[in-house]
């Protein structure tokens, strides 16, 4: 009973929650290092502010202060004159590890394309930590990323947020206490994959019917757990002395907890808001339909991914507090991507409360999120939207952190947040910009031109030695 009592404070389905929280826990721990003082840089805070000729102080794995403050005599001092500092970049949509390099068939671990609803699978169980793509993304300044299942299925499974640190296991990369994501997909992909096999869904209306049926099952599952947990509460109260008839029934009910179901665990978690919904959706009309469905079942869509038509519904997304994780310039590869425009990100950013994010979905794009943001900023400015670097950096830092539910821990250089920091050779919004140093939790994890700080995956060891023998 002791283990259950803390749940009585009001959390529903605490048994299920507790089980989930304990599964495959993060083993990531940042090594300790000396405090770091980065001096005289142009600093983009990540929250819309910019400081010129400013310093950033990192201590105990956290941002201690930006601007002015106390410095330990043991601090390592970096002269960052003429250089720029930003928070570590965050990619909310990556398939590193689940579609790793080399892209051989046996490495294709991102789509459990055997049924349209596979909410029971977890992307982390497919992640190969030796994917060389992680190291390339680190060199591009990416300090955290969400690994998602692919979009073959309506419910693709759980996504996981990782710290971009080399490790033997994904648990060693797992972002401590980050919420899980639920990957869902609209439109062409699920109906093509399953319609092509002459099974449901083969149409967009088939997509909707299958989502709704799954949510109905998840609601029932949640209700079963709620009833069970109420019975546990009631029985606990009875054990304290109040022995009513109802509590006898409750005590009996506690003997038969609902059967745990991996698929419905995840869906119910999304209904409760513990698991954040990441919805692959291209067309504006489909996004609005999905928002209506979320209303019907009482859950929140956290972020629409890809959203090449998001600019058509930018006001509706902002009003609903939904982020748009978007590309700078992809279009035309399928008909639901036909209306893509390069101003998409800037237009989603425009309304009050807009939450625009630059995402990659690519092992190449993740290496240069800054350049993708630069392209989007340029297009916004050419359309007259007046977007500054300090505003645009939010698209690859704080807004991304918000989408992943980790904005209280990282995504900006606010004092007390994780010391996830990139030092750039220049204004990052350029093809010539490169990270000189990348810090994760205050630890220098990458340094340009320093072989000792350029991690290499096991896979890349010993390649191309043949010709030199």
């Amino acid at each position, binding site marked *: 009973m002791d283990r259950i009592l803390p749940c009585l404070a009001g959390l529903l389905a605490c048994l299920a929650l507790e089980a989930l929280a304990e599964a495959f826990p993060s083993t990531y721990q940042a090594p300790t290092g000396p405090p770091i003082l980065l001096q005289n840089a142009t600093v983009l805070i990540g929250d819309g502010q910019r400081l010129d000729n400013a310093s950033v102080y990192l201590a105990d794995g956290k941002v201690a202060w930006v601007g002015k403050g106390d410095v330990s005599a043991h601090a390592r001092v970096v002269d960052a004159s003429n250089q720029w500092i930003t928070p570590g970049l965050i990619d909310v949509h990556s398939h590193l590890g689940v579609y790793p*390099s*080399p*892209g*051989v068939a046996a490495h294709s671990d991102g789509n459990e394309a055997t049924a349209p609803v596979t909410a029971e699978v977890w992307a982390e169980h497919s992640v190969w930590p030796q994917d*060389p*793509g992680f190291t*390339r993304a680190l060199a591009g300044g990416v300090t955290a990323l969400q690994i998602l299942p692919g979009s073959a299925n309506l419910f693709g499974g759980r996504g996981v947020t990782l710290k971009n640190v080399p490790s033997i296991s994904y648990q060693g990369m797992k972002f401590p206490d980050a919420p899980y994501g639920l990957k869902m997909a609209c439109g*062409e992909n699920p109906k093509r994959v399953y319609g092509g096999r002459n099974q449901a869904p083969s149409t967009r209306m088939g997509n909707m019917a299958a989502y709704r049926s799954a949510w109905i099952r998840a609601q029932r599952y949640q209700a079963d757990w709620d009833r069970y947990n109420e019975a546990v509460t009631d029985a606990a109260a009875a054990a304290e002395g109040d022995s009513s008839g109802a509590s006898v029934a409750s005590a009996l009910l506690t003997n038969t907890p609902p059967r745990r179901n991996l698929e419905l665990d995840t869906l119910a978690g999304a209904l409760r808001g513990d698991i954040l919904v990441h919805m692959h959706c291209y067309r504006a009309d489909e996004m609005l339909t999905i928002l209506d469905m979320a209303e019907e079942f009482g859950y929140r869509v956290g972020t629409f991914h890809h959203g090449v038509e998001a*600019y*058509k519904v930018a006001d509706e997304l902002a009003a609903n507090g939904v982020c748009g994780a978007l590309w700078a*310039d*992809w*279009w*035309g*590869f*399928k*008909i639901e991507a*036909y*209306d*893509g*425009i*390069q*101003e998409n990100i800037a*237009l989603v950013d425009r309304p009050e409360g807009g939450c625009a994010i630059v995402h990659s979905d690519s*092992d*190449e794009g993740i*290496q*240069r999120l800054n*350049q993708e943001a*630069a*392209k989007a*900023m*340029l*297009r916004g400015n*050419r*359309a*007259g939207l007046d977007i500054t670097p300090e505003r645009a950096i939010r698209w690859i830092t704080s807004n991304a952190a918000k989408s992943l539910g980790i904005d209280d821990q990282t995504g900006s250089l606010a004092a007390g947040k994780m010391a996830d920091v990139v030092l750039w050779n220049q204004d990052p*919004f*350029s*093809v*010539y910009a*490169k990270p000189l140093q990348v810090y994760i939790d205050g630890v220098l994890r990458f340094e340009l031109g320093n072989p000792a700080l350029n991690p290499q995956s096991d*896979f*890349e060891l010993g*390649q*191309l030695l043949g*010709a030199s023998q």
Partner: protein
Amino acid sequence: MKSILLQWLMVAALPATMTVHAESLLITHGSVHIGDESAATVQDIYIEDGLIEAVSTDLSALTADRIIDAGGRPVTPALFAGITALGLSEIGMVYEAVDSRLNELYTGLMHPEFDVRAAYNPHSSAVPVTRVEGYGYTLLVAAPGDRTLSGQGSLVRFDGGFDSFEGDSALFVNVDGYSGNRIGGSRAAHWMLLNSAFAELSVADDDLTLISARGKAALKSARRDGIFVFRANRASDILQTLAFVSKHKLRAVISGAQEAWLVRKALADTGVPVIINALDNLPGSFDALGARLDNAALLNEAGVTVLFTSGETHNARKLRQVAGSAVANGLPYGAAIAAMTSLPAEVFGGQPRMIAPGLTADLVIWSGDPLDVNAAADLVIIDGRLDSMKSRQTQLLERYLPSEIGLGRSYISP
């Protein structure tokens, strides 16, 4: 390339009482990259009847129908968009709208006579989408499928013409591991088939087993006047290609070439250019274990001609970023400019694409560094005419940018 002095002489040759043609255009104070490796210089450019008539530091004495002050902004020849299916592929996954590959016809025969130019459509929305970003031409691809010879294409200009092809026929050949696996399980099968096909060129028609009589004629013609684009990434495949090219005295280019830096001396010795994606830096396959960001820089330093392609069709406009990335990783800036402007035309036999008197006036005024992601094409000029700078995408923007929408956005007609 004409010297500055020669350009001056050509200006001087213009009659003092010159009558201005209806189609004349004067661009002043451009920071002009003429299209070779030289640094930009501030120049005026005079254009008449679609041709560049004069390039000089001061043409202010001339009048023209239209004068555009570039105000120090960079001016380049209209860019090369890489190897693409522009005008061949309207939407990537709409199969009936893609004509760049030969899929279902496979008969066991090789089809060097398959020519994608017959399918080219200048009205594809992807053409203006690319043109307004400063691109003036591309190499049409016969896309690789499961075959060794995938067919022919050539350069095409984005001047709106239905048959604006130029240059040599380019025959696309695939010798990599991926396609090798689809033709019998080995890349050695590529060489088996290619050796047999070339052997058949010298035997009687009725003995043909790999190619039809028309195919044989096409292959012979390509060997005589065309250029072979071999897709190969692994160093050993590149060396096999160079040996084959030498044996059959082919003009050739190697595309992909991710491990080309490993065999750069051999490439330089044979003079075979490469066309690469300078963003490739992952071991995406076992053919590309040596992929690295300074591939272009190392090749250039060794004397290899380097061109760029992104592998994209709809987003071919990304190629500037590819070239800029090569510069960020050590390629001299001038080499990148030449690779994006004049060099592809030279390699694939197109008309010269430089800013020089007598040449076609396909050029672009940029808002900033044409190789950087923080600049864009301000004005595109094709055949001496100002492009409308409109595309389906600019019109979508015009429809969705306003906040006052009246009866609805469907009533906003850009």
